[in-house]
């Protein structure tokens, strides 16, 4: 039936039918919320009542001046530090697994495995590992003779609870970064290395003069993923420590959810969301700028 119509008419029908719904969804769930967040961030609103009061920048002043809110980013910082270590390890293993090695596919399979496991399951998996009395890490430390160390409350000490949690992130995401690095390494033509070998270059020279410059962009990409990931941490501390002890492992996203859905302070929660959104957008814009500059 449709084929009776001219291609021009068909084209119009298809364009309208195929584009309207995705476009509608895009505006409803991406652009509208971004703009609405901005509007709400200047309001005092409990999320239910009909009257929203315009209070100017008061919410933003609160976000930046209240150490209970902005100071929480200190906790996110731990994830950033561990994320850097995670990237170095990932690159290291990618380089190893990119050489001729029997069983390298098996190792790649194993190192990537944690990434596809359910996040809540992984959280409890480590809840067990890090448990003070029944935990397997302390049992292991005890059996190796580290009596003192085997009494450690890994998730109960406010000084390093965030690093304990971030180490779970390392376990879970290192393989993901590694697979991305590995993909980039495999695209470097092997004759470059052969030529370097003929010229007498050693392994380090090959790595620093051939490998690094060729995967520079991918390193950049992974580092930006690390930064945005660190800014957006939620599941792990929420499931494992509920932000404890005494709020020491609360992350910024947890604070937003708490402010909105427990304290019903939607204006403040919106301002916090806008701040987070801006941070992420700034980080990603820098990344895209650097990447596009590299293309020219």
């Amino acid at each position, binding site marked *: 039936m449709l084929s009776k119509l001219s291609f021009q008419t068909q084209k119009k029908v298809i364009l309208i039918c195929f584009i309207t719904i995705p476009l509608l969804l895009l505006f409803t769930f991406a652009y509208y919320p*971004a703009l609405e967040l901005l509007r*709400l961030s200047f309001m005092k609103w409990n999320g239910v009542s009909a009257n929203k009061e315009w209070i100017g920048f008061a919410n933003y002043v609160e976000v930046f001046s209240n150490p209970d809110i902005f100071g929480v980013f200190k906790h996110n910082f731990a994830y950033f530090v561990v994320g850097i270590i995670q990237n170095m390890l990932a690159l290291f293993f990618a380089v190893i697994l990119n050489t001729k090695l029997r069983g390298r596919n098996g190792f790649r399979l194993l190192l990537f495995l944690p990434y596809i496991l359910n996040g809540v399951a992984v959280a409890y998996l480590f809840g067990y590992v890090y448990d003070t009395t029944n935990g397997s890490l302390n049992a292991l430390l005890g059996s190796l003779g580290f009596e003192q160390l085997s009494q450690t409350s890994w998730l109960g000490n406010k000084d390093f609870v965030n690093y304990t949690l971030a180490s779970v992130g390392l376990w879970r995401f290192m393989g993901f970064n590694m697979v991305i690095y590995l993909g980039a390494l495999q695209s470097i033509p092997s004759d470059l290395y052969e030529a370097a070998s003929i010229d007498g270059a050693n392994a380090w020279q090959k790595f620093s003069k051939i490998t690094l410059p060729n995967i520079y962009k991918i390193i950049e990409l992974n580092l930006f993923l690390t930064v945005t990931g660190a800014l957006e941490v939620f599941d792990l501390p929420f499931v494992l420590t509920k932000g404890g002890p005494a709020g020491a492992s609360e992350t910024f996203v947890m604070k937003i959810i708490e402010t909105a859905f427990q304290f019903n302070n939607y204006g403040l929660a919106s301002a916090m969301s806008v701040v987070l959104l801006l941070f992420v957008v700034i980080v990603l814009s820098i990344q895209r700028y650097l990447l596009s500059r590299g293309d020219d």
Partner: protein
Amino acid sequence: MGVIGKLQQGLKYIILCLAALVILFPPYIIVVNAFKTKEKFFEASTMSLPDSFFYFDNFVQAFKQASIPLAFGNTATIIIVTLFFNILLGSAFCYAISRFQFRLQGILVGLFMFATIIPQITTQVVNYKTIASLGLTNNLMGPVLLYIGADIIQIYIYLQFIKNIPYELDESAMIEGASLVRIFRSIIFPLLAPATYTIIILKTISIYNDFFVPYLYLPRAQHVVVSTSLMRFFGNNSGDWQLISAAILIIMIPTAVMYLFLQRYIFSGVTSGAVK
């Protein structure tokens, strides 16, 4: 291979085996404890092997208490409905936007690409209100709508893929008298199959593993999904690690098995998804 070469090779294996131990240590603990009786769990070391790997009481109890059948059913419903619309809307959209010349074309693609930098986790405060006003909180279709609307990785993947299908195919079909809808249905969509598989795998894993959305939008017991069922179960049985270990295993096994069978697609999908 010289002595140094052999030493290097040996060192690599030692390092890789250490890494493998670190990866396997936490799951090992869960596996051995999931098969222990309560008495055995309290008297023996956490690292010791159970008396038998045929003791399934913990699994049976976890299965019942964590409402595993209900949780898997709800998760499966969400995944299937989401995938259906993701694939239908995503492929049709990409066909329309990349095969025809029209004004606003560039702007439309740009709008979608730009939206990828808005992190979903920041917009939940408003999206929650939107879903609530549609009456879709405490409804499996609430998360479905979010997964369809807010995540646009499928559009990105289809757009990359459709570029590589030569336009001559469309042209010769048009000469044969096929309608554009038919061209999409019988030529383009089947050729997009690899992209479709990638999307199915990536989305299945990400929805199965998501905790944030179901926690926020599906608080009632009857709507429990895989991630939230484990959390409830933990809350009711904290300290009974042999039970929790069994529940963790039940939840981790499906994606692990899927991974073993579909590793090639998963690796390529993850790489293309990350480099967007």
